């Protein structure tokens, strides 16, 4: 792999972001991380880099509850961008919500690979990254 694995975290909870970054480190997989506090920031970043695939993340961990633009609103906007990208980005929704409606809604979205309940344990994160890389 020419480029290191690019993990993207979209979440307003800084403690959560910290734990994910730490867990990623423990996975011993070479990677880089980009974080966004809400959906809007992430969308802006993807839009800016949609013509340079190397800059785009390989995996997105998306929260539901966020200020400005929440996870579902992000997915709604992403619909117009995602299909144009040369490489499809697998998106995992990671939330503390146990609302069946949220889970159902998340799983029904075509870009979402799976819905994961917080806390996201480090071995689980490692497994997802490995699955994404195709190891």
């Amino acid at each position: 792999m020419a480029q290191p694995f690019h993990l993207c975290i979209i979440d307003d909870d800084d403690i959560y972001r910290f734990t994910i970054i730490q867990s990623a480190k423990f996975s011993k997989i070479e990677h880089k991380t980009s974080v966004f506090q809400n959906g809007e920031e992430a969308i802006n970043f993807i839009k800016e880099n949609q013509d340079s695939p190397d800059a785009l993340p390989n995996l997105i961990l998306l929260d539901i509850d966020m200020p400005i633009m929440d996870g579902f609103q992000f997915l709604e906007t992403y619909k117009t961008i995602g299909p144009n990208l040369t490489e499809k980005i697998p998106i995992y929704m990671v939330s503390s919500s146990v609302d069946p409606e949220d889970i159902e809604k998340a799983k029904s979205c075509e870009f979402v690979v799976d819905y994961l309940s917080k806390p996201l344990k480090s071995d689980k994160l490692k497994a997802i990254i490995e699955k994404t890389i195709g190891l």
Partner: protein
Amino acid sequence: MNMKDDKKTMDDTSAITIRDMLRIGTWNLNIETGIYSLDKVTCEVLGIPYDCVVKRGEKSLFDKPEATEFLIKDGIIELIKTGQPFDQELEFKTKKGTVIWLHVIATRKLENDKCTAIAGIVQDITKSKQTQETFLRHNQLLKFAEHKAKLGHWNWDASSDTLICSENMTYIVGVPTDVPVPLSVLIDKVHPEDREFVRKQIAYNIKTKHYHSFNHRMVMPDGRTRIIQVSGDAILDDEGNLTNILGISQDVTSYKTIETELTKKNELLIFAEQKALLGHWELNTLTDEVFWSANLYYLFKQEENIKLEFNTYFECVHPDDQAVVTAHFAQAIEQKHFDKIIHRILLKDGTLKWIRLLGDVEVDKKGNTVKLAGTCQDISEQQLQEIKFKGLVDSAPSATIIVGNESIIQMVNKQGESLLGYSSEELVGKSIETLIPSRFDEIRTPHREKFLTNMEVTIVDLGEDFYLTHKSGREIPVEITLGPLQTDEGLIISMSVRDLTSAKIAESKILKAKEDLEILTEELTAQNNQLADFTQITSHNLRAPVSNLNSLVEIYKMMGSEEERNDLFKKFETVISHLSLTLNTLIEALSAKSHNSLERSELSFSNKLSKTKEIFSTEIERTKAVIKSDFSAVDSIRYNKIYMESIFQNLIGNALKYKSPERVPEIEITSKLENGKIILSFKDNGLGIDLEKHGHKIFGLNKVFHNHPEAKGIGLFMTKTQIEAMGGKITVTSKVNEGSTFNIHFI
């Protein structure tokens, strides 16, 4: 007779003159030559020229019918042969075509026993022949007439007590013709039961010398019994003695049958009139002559032989109805049309009756009314029924309208009068359409047809509210029940009208109550939702920090260096402090929700505002915020003091916290009364919130909509929880970059 022996009583000249006068011509026929010699008169009678030669057997100059031709030919041959004299009345036709009758007489002349010539005379008898023909024809006509009329005539002779009967009569009675028949023979022909009566009648007629007609029965030869009418004229001599009676006997059976039938029918009519309490009348408007049928005398309790005039009737008319009756008759004469009229009559004995007059008007050639004729019926019974019916309708609990032919209102009860504002007199005779707003015309048509087909009691349902128009023009909501009744006078429809005005009011009350209930349900649902939300929030807002704690613990275990672990403790502290804030908030919210009866006291909005301003004084000074207020509409409220302070502090605090960096914050707090309820508004010109995006979670716990360093997402959640705990609600309107307005609705 031999001419030679006869005495000569007249000279030849005189004979010729007489012959001329009698138009008698002479002629002779020479047998040998066959040539007729005709004298001047003969030629004139035959209408031929004097010098013209007529030869026996040749076609003559005048026409003869075949019978005449045959009689001449045969008669001449017979005369020549046997000497039998020729004496015939013969028909001829002149050249001009006129029919003439000639009396022809001829004798033969013998020479040496041989007939050499025939001599004769001819006389024009056309005139007498015509008279005879006419007489014969008349006689035939008389016979024919007698026969047709089954009539015979007779002549009784007093001296012999015998009768000469006409041919037809002899045929009818069966006695010999042209022979005097004794009276007794004729009486024997009369029906046995009538003989005595006939004898007496005749005896009486002879005695009084005046013939009175009478009828008797007679059994005919074929066995049928016929009725014979006998009439006659007594003939007296100069001394006044009865000599003859000329009479006529006529078979009047068929007339009698018709008469009997007529009598029967008349009796039937009288009977029918009596049964129907009906009579007929005629009034000659020119002479004031009045005719009544028998039953009318009975109905008016009048003697049958009184002289009738218009007043006979008019004096019986009830005093209260006399004006109407007078006007009615005047109108009938004027307009040549007699309308039905119903009025009362008050008879001398005090009897009150209702009568109905129907009539027709007869006019002369000039179009003037000459006669009124019609029927008069005692309808007291029906009128009584009608009064009963009206009483029944009047006693009906709901407004009732009786509609007759062609939608004409016949009756309206008291309830109907008061519902519609019309008097009965104003409505009766008018069309029911007067009462129905025209916008229903189209929609009613199929319903009306269906009703007239089914003829069942029907509640009118047009699929929309139905109205009748009050006299004032106001529309009344109604429910109408139609009831059909087929009577002798046609279809009658009873319309029972239920006034729905009060029902409508009640309905709107119910609707209002329903709306109120809906609002209440909405509130209850909202409260239920809050509870559900609360559970959701509890798990959600607790799960997030707890899962963070879990992750941190996991990381802590994996971390090798003590330094890293120390750094990690700062994270633990952040999570724990956040968790405890969340828990405290939730505990507070729970306690709010569990206190339905929070302590209330009289609070002043302006007071609370100044207190809040004091708390935020530093912030207000720093931001130069302008806070305006208007509590003129309402300034005081009974509320929980802590919650009220919380509302003011949270909303003003938020307004200051989320101010626009481009504007000096302006906050406006006002109160107003709506439907008796207090509404408190907090309006700012701050950042505003995109309600399309965040509207559903604006009052949620830990929801922040700005990347504001101080945003914790607790304030609005708590404010809402507290307001709702007191039974009120909070709403928000907002525009990004323009500002937000929070409205608190107290109860």
